[in-house]
């Protein structure tokens, strides 16, 4: 830290040490470059794989019997004559879930925006430890490589669902994917968790220690609050998944019986005795549920910032927003059991988890109402980022409301593991977090690449995506209520569900359009990265500090001294000022009240 205080503003920082190609673009310790690395590896690369997998699944669900050249093309030997293998369907389910939840929406979202914004919005020259930050990214990259490699394993990748419940994931006799594929999955996740922990610790330390002068906790942008709390939940819960993964590795490879007991499979009794698969479920969901909020909170933060800026209005109820983030974070660590109402655990525990789960609706409702009130009497600028943030609030409400049904243990009996659940979590966590991610990319693209994204392509991207998102997931609730279980390779063995086949085809239609329209975004992103229009200094007329930093990326962020902060970040359309925004580094007038 001291190094930066003695920073000499008159000297150009870039001259201090010559940067080679390798230290600048590959093993970079600069948070802005690391943010870009996360964005490109986590979101662009893994995102394309994850979405492609979901489209293959949707094609299979809609037309289960018919051979498909697309399957033959992408799946090769796993789709002989274009007919998808049942094992590979489960593998797609598993890898889609893993990649989207962990790689795209955890590392891609948090990694990109925490890295980019924490130092810039706090007025810091860089992260607390640039070196650890670099290590964090490269561990993530390594885990990405291993996870992608596992797809090409002879017996197929992990196929026990992203929740990898043992014994299915532990016993190789149970499933082809539980061999080398699962080993690689566990190794990859172990490295991923290490990366995530290092990253999170770095974020926490930076937020606590490196705020610029005047940046009180109650003057921090809500983005930073969200990233800060996300990092804390990550540090609390990810180690538990690591322990679960390690114990599972022990069970698989070293003959222990933590999670396994009394198994007879393919004509032989296995030696395991005394373990419990339910224990694994507890350990998994102790991470698994907070993980939902690790994914969602950054999106909430980004939406707060984008909605306020583009409404040209202060975010409504700033302190209530902070309190609700904290409340959601706290509650998220004591609700994991709602994934396990019918796992065979004591029904009394089910009651407790129903109670805590439904409580989350209160802070969530406060957030939704505050967003809506922020729009009221605003002067709304519909930049693409704003569209995605409004879309975010919409899917957050739609998806969140069905959580009230699923969190109710009595109702979960009948809806558990049906498509109702799939619809619920895709809306509230998948689509919402993706919207948050897109919103962030559109909003901070100028900061990342000093160029602007094409807004018209952005509009097309949003509206088609928005229609498809509802088109896919809204009807899905209803086929779930009709009792259709998820993770079925085909439903044709159940004439009972024949009347749902049409709906499944419609859903697949929306999914294909929604998936392909992301090509527009990819095109826009890559084209604008090199040929986009040059960005002005503060394109969205935003108050936060990052827009006072040099748009051209320099090591240390600000040419001269670090700006000092005098006010909260949401002074939009404040009476007494000509402009409709007052950046945080403008001193208060005499007698002016902060907020």
């Amino acid at each position: 830290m001291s190094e930066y205080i003695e920073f000499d503003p008159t000297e150009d920082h870039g001259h201090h040490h010559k940067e080679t190609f390798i230290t600048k673009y590959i093993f970079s310790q600069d948070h802005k470059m690391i943010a870009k690395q996360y964005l490109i590896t986590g979101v662009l690369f893994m995102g394309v794989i994850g979405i492609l997998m979901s489209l293959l699944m949707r094609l299979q669900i809609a037309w289960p019997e018919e051979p498909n050249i697309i399957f033959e093309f992408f799946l090769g030997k796993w789709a002989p004559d274009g007919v998808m293998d049942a094992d590979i369907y489960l593998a797609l389910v598993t890898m889609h879930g893993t990649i989207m939840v962990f790689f795209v929406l955890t590392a891609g979202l948090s990694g990109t925006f925490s890295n980019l914004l924490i130092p810039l919005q706090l007025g810091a020259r860089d992260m607390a430890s640039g070196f650890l930050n670099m290590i964090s990214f490269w561990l993530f990259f390594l885990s990405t490589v291993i996870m992608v490699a596992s797809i090409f394993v002879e017996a197929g990748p992990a196929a026990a669902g992203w929740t990898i419940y043992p014994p299915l994931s532990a016993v190789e006799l149970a499933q082809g994917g539980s061999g080398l594929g699962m080993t690689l999955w566990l190794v990859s996740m172990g490295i991923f968790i290490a990366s995530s922990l290092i990253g999170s610790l770095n974020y926490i330390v930076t937020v606590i220690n490196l705020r610029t002068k005047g940046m009180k906790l109650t003057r921090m942008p809500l983005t930073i609050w969200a990233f800060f709390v996300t990092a804390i939940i990550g540090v609390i819960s990810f180690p538990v998944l690591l322990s679960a993964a390690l114990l599972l590795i022990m069970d698989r490879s070293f003959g222990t019986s933590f999670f396994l007991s009394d198994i007879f499979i393919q004509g032989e009794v296995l030696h395991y005795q005394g373990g419990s698969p339910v224990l694994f479920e507890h350990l998994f969901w102790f991470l698994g549920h907070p993980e939902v909020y690790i994914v969602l909170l950054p999106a909430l933060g980004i939406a707060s910032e984008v909605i306020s800026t583009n409404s040209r209005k202060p975010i409504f109820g700033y302190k209530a927003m902070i309190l609700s983030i904290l409340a959601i974070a706290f509650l998220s660590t004591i609700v994991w059991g709602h994934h396990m109402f019918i796992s065979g655990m004591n029904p009394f525990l089910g009651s407790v988890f129903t109670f805590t789960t439904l409580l989350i609706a209160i802070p969530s409702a406060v957030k939704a109402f505050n967003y809506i009130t922020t729009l009221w009497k605003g002067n709304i600028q519909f930049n693409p980022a704003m569209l995605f943030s409004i879309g975010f609030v919409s899917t957050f409400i739609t998806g969140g409301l069905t959580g009230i049904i699923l969190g109710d243990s009595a109702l979960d009996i009948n809806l558990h593991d049906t498509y109702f659940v799939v619809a619920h979590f895709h809306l509230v966590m998948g689509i919402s977090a993706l919207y948050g991610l897109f919103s962030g990319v559109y909003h901070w693209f100028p900061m990342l690449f000093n160029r602007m994204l094409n807004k018209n392509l952005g509009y097309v991207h949003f509206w088609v995506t928005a229609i498809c998102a509802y088109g896919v997931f809204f009807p899905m609730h209803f086929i779930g209520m009709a009792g259709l279980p998820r993770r079925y390779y085909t439903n044709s063995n159940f004439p009972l569900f024949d009347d749902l086949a049409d709906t499944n085809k419609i859903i697949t239609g929306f999914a294909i359009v929604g998936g392909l329209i992301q090509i527009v975004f990819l095109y826009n992103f890559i084209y604008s990265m090199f040929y986009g229009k040059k960005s002005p200094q503060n394109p969205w007329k935003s108050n936060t500090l990052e827009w006072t930093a040099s748009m051209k990326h320099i090591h240390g962020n600000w040419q001269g001294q670090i700006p000092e902060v005098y006010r909260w970040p949401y002074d939009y359309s404040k009476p007494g000022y000509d402009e409709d925004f007052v950046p945080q580094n403008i001193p208060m007038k005499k007698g002016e009240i902060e907020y």
Partner: protein
Amino acid sequence: MNTFLTILILLFIVIAIWQIVKIYDLTQVSTVVIDNSEIANDEDNRINGNLMLGFLVFIYVITIVCFIRYGDFPLMSNAASEHGSKIDNLMMVSMVLIFIVQTFTQFFLYYFAYKYKGQKGNKALFYSDNHKLEFLWTIIPAIVLTVLITYGLVTWSEIMNVDQDEDPMVIELYAQQFNWKARYSGEDNALGKSNVRLIDIDRANILGLDEFDPNAQDDVITTELHLPVGKPVLFKMRSQDVLHSAYMPHFRAQMNCVPGMITQFGFTPSVTTIDMRKTPKMVEKILNINNIRVEKSKDLQEKGEEALDPYEFDYLLLCNKICGKSHYNMQMKIIVETQEEFDNWINQQTKFENSLIAQK
């Protein structure tokens, strides 16, 4: 060849998009007003603001269409168990509640977005806080949720607490990759001891029963689940290999089967299979499904394949926890019948003591 064609088509699509964008860019340049900025202007605000209203209509339309098409919730209004209607009522109350909240909040969200679309020269209202308002919308959800939580918990404990005074019939549901077995406890209503280590395929002891346990002797193992109507049943679930979940949607019943432990779920079936087939809703559903199957059969026959069998309704037990390759086809037929029919059926089944193959 197909692969090559696919790549070619994809390539053409990409080129087409690229060209469209290029043409679009050119048209932008030729207009008189050159707005180089990629920041939303009044025109963008107007168009997108109107689209916001359009999108609100879209959400309402898709909601209405879904409710009309699937609104009678084939599995929500005709529970075949005594506790089922409690779940259905709770579901109805919750659905109505979230429907109201959804309708209003989405309205305000998109309507405000439309109403307050930006214009040059307009200034937003500086309105950062209102404690009364925030208190209001903290306390109202809190009250509503208190009611809902209480209602839910009462229902949950009623369902999960098995009343031993009612003397429920004990049946074991036994899961393995990829089928189900049922084990009836016989006249003593007590299941014999069992462990997968006792499985002896050669002697047909497929569920690993303790041959020397007197309780096991009159146990009956079947591949179909028959239940007498109106009689409380207590299911004991067991799995021999991986996690499975015994899902009986018509009875609003589900419980995981966990290797190494016994889980349980109890309910009382209230409608026989034959009566259920006669309910107007089910008649309609069966007719509809059979029409679909006839259409499908026509296509199949054109291809020279066999036609599909007509569908007749039966209750089902499905596996609802990912369990491996054939997870999608792990089912067992459930037949609810009168006590008399049930007694006839169970008496025809072989008791465990008689089913064992003698050691050679």
